[in-house]
């Protein structure tokens, strides 16, 4: 990497995140309340391991209170004309835009992801989701679900730590637009932006009990998703937890949508635009430290261009900047937690042990915090664990194929089916391949592009139900 022109650090101000309280309770029925239990958890800045705040481990009693508040609010909220609900959502969207710097910095501190991504990707999309579903609130009868689609009731929503505020938006915006009330549990490593969002709900004058936030770990999540008072459960997270939830809800009348893991194939044909494909590969797996359920973690390269693509990829990886998430020049931030780092280390060690060839650019990692250098494994075969299991970190496995049929067969040969990528200059090949891939989203000559108008969801073990777009309304409507 160049030494002649070293960029000076350009850190964003931590103060922009606003005041972080030393302890947080829950947000129930329009009030910040203390937990009925005494247990507290800590959330840390993954880039420094500094404790940011303590927050409540939600008890069954807390969940009861929150569900009861949501139930009570449902009667009046669902009876509001759509145009009125839309006004609240538009107001929330505008406040998010106004406070986007604060939210971006807070998200970076709590999650470890680079400010470049929170500022330029997450927050604009969060606002866009609220704007988009605000627009649907008074047009539900034209959404294709009958003349008078009705809300489901109280929605229990559990979201992961990789895109805390964005996943909140994906869940809350359509639920409110369709007239439901919600109890949301953020992940135990990233509760801060959800609690800040509660302030925004107050600022927007949202009626009490329409949005409730209960914090805590998996125990709180289990209490919420298994609560008999909820009508709908929406979960984004690991396949393992998703299965447990499905088992709990089997035989009940509670509706369920799941958005789970992935092991996406990113297919590069020999006529691909090489430089842009390399960008797409980098974006596919190193965006958000690889903490992306639809990450392009399996690179399938046509054998005839394998060496060329791998060489270009390594050259490009050498220019990735790993470090302080608040530095505006940082491309790759910190791993979200010690536990996640350990999981990535375990799987990469397995990759080496199984004989794959490991490569990372030389980059100095900070002493404190949780860090993992961008890593690519070549000589990977389909039987390796790193080619099968979701790593959820900045680790790419490179496999090869010889023909389009083989590419499709290998791409589909996974228990997952969330996303896929195709790189070729030939339009007919894009269509041929895309129609054969069993994945919820197929990107061609691009990767990791999100938009509120576009439905997102999985096949097979990647879950069921769709979020985003007109399709995203269905999960919250009685149709």
């Amino acid at each position: 990497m160049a030494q002649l022109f070293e960029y000076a650090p350009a850190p964003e101000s931590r103060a922009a995140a606003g005041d972080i309280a030393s302890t947080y309770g829950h947000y129930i029925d329009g009030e910040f309340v203390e937990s009925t239990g005494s247990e507290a958890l800590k959330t840390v800045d993954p880039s420094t391991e500094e404790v940011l705040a303590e927050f409540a481990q939600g008890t069954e009693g807390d969940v009861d209170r929150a569900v009861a508040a949501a139930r009570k609010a449902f009667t009046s909220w669902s009876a509001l004309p759509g145009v009125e609900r839309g006004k609240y959502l538009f107001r929330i969207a505008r406040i998010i835009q106004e406070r986007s710097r604060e939210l971006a910095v807070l998200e970076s501190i709590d999650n470890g992801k680079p400010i470049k991504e929170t500022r330029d990707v997450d927050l604009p999309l969060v606002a866009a989701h609220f704007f988009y579903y605000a627009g649907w609130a008074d047009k539900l009868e034209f959404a294709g679900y009958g003349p008078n689609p009705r809300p489901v009731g109280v929605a229990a929503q559990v979201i992961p730590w990789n895109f805390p505020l964005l996943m909140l938006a994906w869940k809350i915006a359509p639920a409110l637009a369709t007239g439901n009330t919600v109890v949301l549990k953020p992940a135990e490593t990233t509760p801060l932006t959800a609690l800040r969002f509660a302030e925004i709900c107050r600022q927007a004058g949202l009626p009490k009990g329409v949005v409730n936030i209960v914090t805590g770990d998996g125990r709180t999540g289990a209490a919420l998703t298994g609560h008999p008072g909820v009508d709908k459960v929406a979960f984004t997270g690991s396949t393992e937890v998703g299965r447990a939830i499905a088992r709990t809800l089997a035989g009940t009348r509670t509706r369920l949508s799941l958005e789970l893991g992935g092991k996406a194939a990113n297919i590069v044909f020999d006529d691909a635009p090489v430089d842009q494909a390399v960008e797409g590969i980098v974006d596919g797996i190193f965006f958000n430290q690889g903490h992306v359920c639809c990450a392009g973690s399996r690179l399938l390269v046509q054998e005839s261009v394998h060496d060329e693509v791998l060489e270009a990829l390594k050259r490009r990886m050498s220019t990735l900047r790993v470090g302080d998430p608040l530095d505006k020049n940082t491309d790759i931030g910190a791993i979200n937690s010690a536990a996640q780092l350990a999981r990535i280390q375990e799987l990469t060690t397995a990759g080496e042990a199984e004989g794959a060839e490991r490569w990372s650019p030389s980059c100095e990692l900070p002493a404190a915090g949780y860090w993992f250098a961008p890593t690519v494994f070549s000589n990977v075969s389909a039987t390796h664990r790193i080619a099968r299991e979701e790593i959820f970190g900045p680790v790419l496995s490179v496999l090869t194929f010889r023909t389009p049929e083989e590419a499709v067969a290998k791409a589909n040969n996974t228990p997952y089916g969330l996303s896929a990528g195709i790189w070729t200059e030939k339009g007919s090949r894009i269509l041929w391949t895309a129609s054969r891939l069993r994945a919820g989203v197929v990107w061609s000559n691009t990767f990791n592009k999100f938009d509120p108008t576009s439905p997102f969801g999985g096949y097979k073990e990647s879950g069921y139900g769709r979020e985003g777009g007109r399709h995203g309304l269905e999960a919250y409507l009685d149709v």
Partner: protein
Amino acid sequence: MSSSPLSASGLAEIASSEASLRRFLHGLPGIDAVGLQARAAGLGTRSIKTTAKAYAIDLAISMIDLTTLEGADTPGKVRSLCQKARNPDPGDPSVPHTAAVCVYPDMVPIAKEALGGAPINVAAVATAFPSGRAGLPVKLADTAEAVAAGADEVDMVIDRGAFLSGRYLEIYELIAEIKKACVRPDGTAAHLKVIFETGELVTYDNIRRASWLAMLAGADFIKTSTGKVAVNATPANTLVLLEAVRDFRAATGVQVGVKPAGGIRTTKDAMKYLVMVNEILGDDWLSPDWFRFGASSLLNDLLMQRQKLASGRYSGPDYVTVD
């Protein structure tokens, strides 16, 4: 670009016929316009602060081909341009001089004289600049005049009409002929910069092909534009040139320079280009020997930003000279 290096005989083979030259140029990997523009925009978001900015401003000044290419050019105008190139900020001798001055061929003797012994090159635009619409003898004479008058560098334009109608070999031969005309009686040669006029080539695939075509024919530098059309240098079309010289060196071992020209007016813009050079090509190209800005008004903005960094205050256009 295959990763196997191209030998000299391999290079000659490519240009042995129109058909083989076309096969080679059309066999280059395609460019996805959306992805290319996204990458160029992404590099433009790097935040450059304090020490890095001070370094980059001086580097940018030292890379400028300070240019006057007007029909109204006079010896007086050229002399004051040369003076500015030598000593850009009369109040601050620590400001580096520019890389070159760029003028029409008839102004070369004036510029040479005005620059005296200063280590600043004189670049002359030749070959019926900016349209390129003249016969080969005229273009050769134009070049010969500039070289005879002492030009250190020749900026030639390609025939965009020939390119767009697919007559690649004609352009290859033109560049090779001009390259020969750059040789001085003592055997040394003026540096040859080949201008594509990327705004008229329109597609990024065309720009990549033109880049390879010029490098195969012996260009020392490849340059985006004349500055005389609506679309001149852009981050995206310059990125294509940068990738092409990177791949050409990997394939042949020969290093070629890059010059975006036209429309780069602000320090902020210049920083974006330097970030691209830094991240696509690295140290090997971060010098006036391998990267230039073709610009006339950029220098003053760099000087004002330099003054602001030094004093903490923004002074304004009256604190730098008009020319």
